[in-house]
């Protein structure tokens, strides 16, 4: 990027809010995925006005722009695939308003997900979307990717919890859609913008719903000898229309890795476990717990344990949510997949995932949101070994193709990003893309905003995945 443009950015934002040296930029070339792409400058706005100014400057000089929260995304959504300017929202991290009576919070996009819960929990409220990265990921990132989490099963992904947005369009216009009211009464623009992966606008302010903490919570740990018994349990729970607040599954191999790391009390000799949480009024929770335990027993659970207190409950969840860190100790890198299948097909799907893993000669762990059919196979590999990396990518693609072929979807909560752009053709027709492109170009006509995401670019996966460094892309084809 030309020195003069960097100076212009520094004039706008102050020198401490602009990074342009290679050694600084390298920190922003990756996220939680296996993709890489380096921006040419990283800027830290502190207000919506800053964002408007940055966007106008980028437009003037024809640079790509990409928004970024904490960089915990798992699909390359916040990577600068088109080079250009990365707008990092970390310093727009203020909670602007908390309105308990109407159960709303107004926040800047850089507010960390769990910080909002911390700010309201004294009054018995919380922010429902709970990605595993909730202690570091930002609400702006959650909104862009429409993030989920374990409790999505009962409470829905991020879009069910957002009522208003302030945004900056790629031409630098500041707009407001929705507000605190729960219904749009015209087109549900919030519904469109949430989950648009930063391709339609940069989000500068968010009005979110606050949820009330339930009266009673019960956390069960069902332990099985085999993976099949656990998946059959989930299939039957769904068939009997029992919907817990969360229903997570961990296979035996992954469990050992977690136990070595956090000592959560998971049995090291089991084939798999289900972590099931039930919430609601005390009588409903008690009734559901009995039903769930019966189903677990019917599918040969070796043991069904109830967390005795909050401490034990938190420990079990810590085990679940730090799994990716635990696995980081076992291989130089891991690739977390995200795909969805119809829940009735869970047993066969998991068998197939394990088979594909064996076929490619790589270790595949499974720790995922079983209750809503959201698989997260985790492929361990060494990125320095190019052949191994390619096998990992090939295996993951095979898994995703299989999931779509049995009526599933490409992504349940991580987004399409760079990672799955080429796979979009598995689910969408030319007519679908034509409409998506028309909507895209109504909001982002020059394609400067987050180029190279969602839309297939007609490149082989290997090619786009292994490339690093700045590159320029125009409007998606």
């Amino acid at each position, binding site marked *: 990027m030309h020195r003069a443009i960097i100076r212009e950015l520094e004039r706008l934002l102050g020198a401490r809010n602009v990074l342009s040296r290679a050694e600084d930029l390298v920190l922003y070339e990756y996220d939680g995925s296996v993709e890489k792409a380096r921006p040419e400058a990283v800027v830290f706005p502190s207000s919506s006005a800053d964002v408007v100014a940055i966007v106008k400057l980028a437009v003037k000089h024809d640079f790509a722009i990409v928004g970024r929260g904490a960089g915990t995304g798992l699909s390359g959504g916040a990577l600068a695939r088109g080079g250009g300017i990365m707008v990092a929202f970390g310093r727009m991290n203020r909670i602007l308003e908390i309105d308990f009576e*109407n159960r709303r919070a107004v926040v800047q996009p850089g507010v960390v997900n769990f910080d909002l819960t911390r700010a309201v929990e004294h009054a018995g409220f919380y922010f429902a979307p709970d990605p595993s990265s909730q202690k570091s990921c930002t609400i702006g990132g959650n909104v862009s990717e429409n993030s989920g989490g374990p409790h999505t099963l009962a409470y*829905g*992904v991020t879009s069910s919890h957002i009522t208003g947005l302030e945004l900056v369009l790629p031409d630098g216009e500041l707009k407001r859609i929705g507000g*605190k009211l729960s219904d749009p009464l015209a087109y*549900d623009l919030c519904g*469109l913008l949430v989950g648009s992966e930063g391709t339609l606008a940069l989000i500068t302010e968010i009005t979110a719903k606050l949820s009330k903490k339930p009266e009673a919570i019960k956390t069960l740990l069902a332990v099985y000898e085999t993976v099949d018994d656990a998946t059959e349990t989930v299939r039957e729970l769904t068939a009997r229309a029992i919907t817990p607040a969360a229903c997570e599954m961990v296979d035996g191999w992954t469990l050992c890795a977690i136990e070595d790391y956090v000592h959560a009390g998971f049995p090291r000799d089991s084939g798999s476990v289900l972590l099931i949480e039930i919430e609601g009024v005390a009588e*409903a929770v008690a009734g559901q717990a009995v039903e769930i335990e019966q189903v677990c027993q019917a599918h040969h659970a070796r043991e069904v344990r109830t967390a005795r207190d909050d401490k034990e409950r938190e420990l079990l969840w810590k085990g679940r949510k730090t799994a990716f860190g635990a696995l980081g100790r076992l291989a130089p890198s891991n690739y977390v997949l995200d795909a969805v*299948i119809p829940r009735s097909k869970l047993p066969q799907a998991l068998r197939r995932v394990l088979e594909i893993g064996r076929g490619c000669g790589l270790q595949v762990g499974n720790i995922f949101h079983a209750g809503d*059919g959201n698989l997260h196979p985790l492929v361990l590999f060494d990125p320095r070994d190019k052949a191994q990396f390619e096998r990992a990518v090939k295996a993951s693609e095979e898994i995703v193709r299989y999931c779509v072929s049995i*009526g599933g979807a490409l992504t349940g909560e991580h987004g399409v990003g760079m990672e799955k752009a080429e796979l979009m053709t598995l689910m969408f027709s030319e007519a679908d893309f034509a409409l998506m492109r028309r909507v895209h170009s109504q909001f982002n006509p020059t394609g400067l905003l987050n180029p190279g995401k969602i839309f297939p670019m007609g490149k082989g996966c290997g090619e786009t995945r292994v490339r690093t460094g700045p590159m320029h892309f125009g409007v998606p084809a």
Partner: protein
Amino acid sequence: MSALAASAAAVKLENAVGEAFVRTQTSVLEEYAIDGVTPKILVRPASADETASVVRIAADEKLGVIPSGARSAMGVGMPPTAYDVALDMTRVTGIANYDPGDLTVSVNAGMPLRELARTLGEKNQFLPLAVPQFEKATVGGAIATGLDSPLRQFYGTPRDFLIGAEFVDGTGALAKSGGRVVKNVTGYDFHKLLSGSLGTLAVITRLNFRTYPVPPSRRGLLASFPDETRALGFGKAIAASALTPIVLEVVSPECAAILFRKEAPFASLRTAKMEWTVCVGFEGTEEVCERYARELTRLAREAVAQNAVVVNDPQFAILLEIVREAPVTMRDAAPQAVVMRFTALPSDMADLLRALGSFAGSSWMTPAVLVRAGAVVYVALLPREGEESARRQMEYFWTSVASLRSKLELRGSLVFCPAEWKAALNVWAHVPSDPEMESRVKKAFDPSGVFARGRFVGGM
């Protein structure tokens, strides 16, 4: 017979859907009139592909198309400015896929809600879309019209349970979004835009929903209060408790007089002239329902209810039907009834009701009010028959609402209103949308303006 009937376009349409399903007789077309505007031709496709062909022909021939289901709520919106083709979707019906074991269903747009409910009921499941005209309405019509369900208190709006859609966009292409799994963030969520879009973006051909289990028991509590402040206070007390009811409706005495006109079990509510009634619904096992009944009775007493009675399962089913049909019952209560729908914040509700009451008082009308789920207010104004000044009074009322918008976060539209008043009143006057943002969406979906011109917000 119109010129269109004899044209080349008509022949093309006949080729697309079969001669028997294209009609041009005036008597038939009149049944499809919207606010006095009669279409020139009626087309009844049998499939999504036929629907796409019809839209392509209409786009080529520059004809205005309005899709319809059972036509039970066609009066919603402004009168159309272009209405050549009535596109009747009732033949595109039936269940495309039902996976009870996955709690998902994929249904063609023209399927009546009642039939869908029957199919789901066989597997002890249901869709929480209890909208007015339930006995007639189609699934596609219900989503496109975007009217409320009282069950939203717990189950939310279609944004929470509509998981995918297939539709024909304005270029005549059959497109889709979402899928048939309960969790999915792949691609743009176009199906969310279709909800409440009144047929202005696309013709819905199929909708995918997540379904829910029928609970073991569903009951209610009816409590009466001397004024709206106390009634709303009871609602707030419930919200602050651990309870999560499925229905929470606050009914004004005038509204109760309309809603409980016929049904014997609730006749006493009609006679209680001065009382505000709060209807609470809850569901679950015996133990859960007992807990609700006990605790709600206590909360009602603390909120100084004059009366609180528990309603058992069969009676609650009747009560749910009554509140479900409320907007239509209010419309049918007088020949020139106007039914408005507002969305407001719980904190503003009391101020809003007070202000609306005073506007109505100034125009010598008594409003019938129903507050739904603490978020939506239906208000009916019922002029006396033959009252000549009724339209002017209504105009005064509707204009006065503007003065509230600077004080309260508020949106409002006229759901039902005599067609001849719409030009003066503007149905969408109090929907402060950003027409520029909305029109971007409209242009992308319907670049040449084939669909439902003039009916929606901002003339779209």
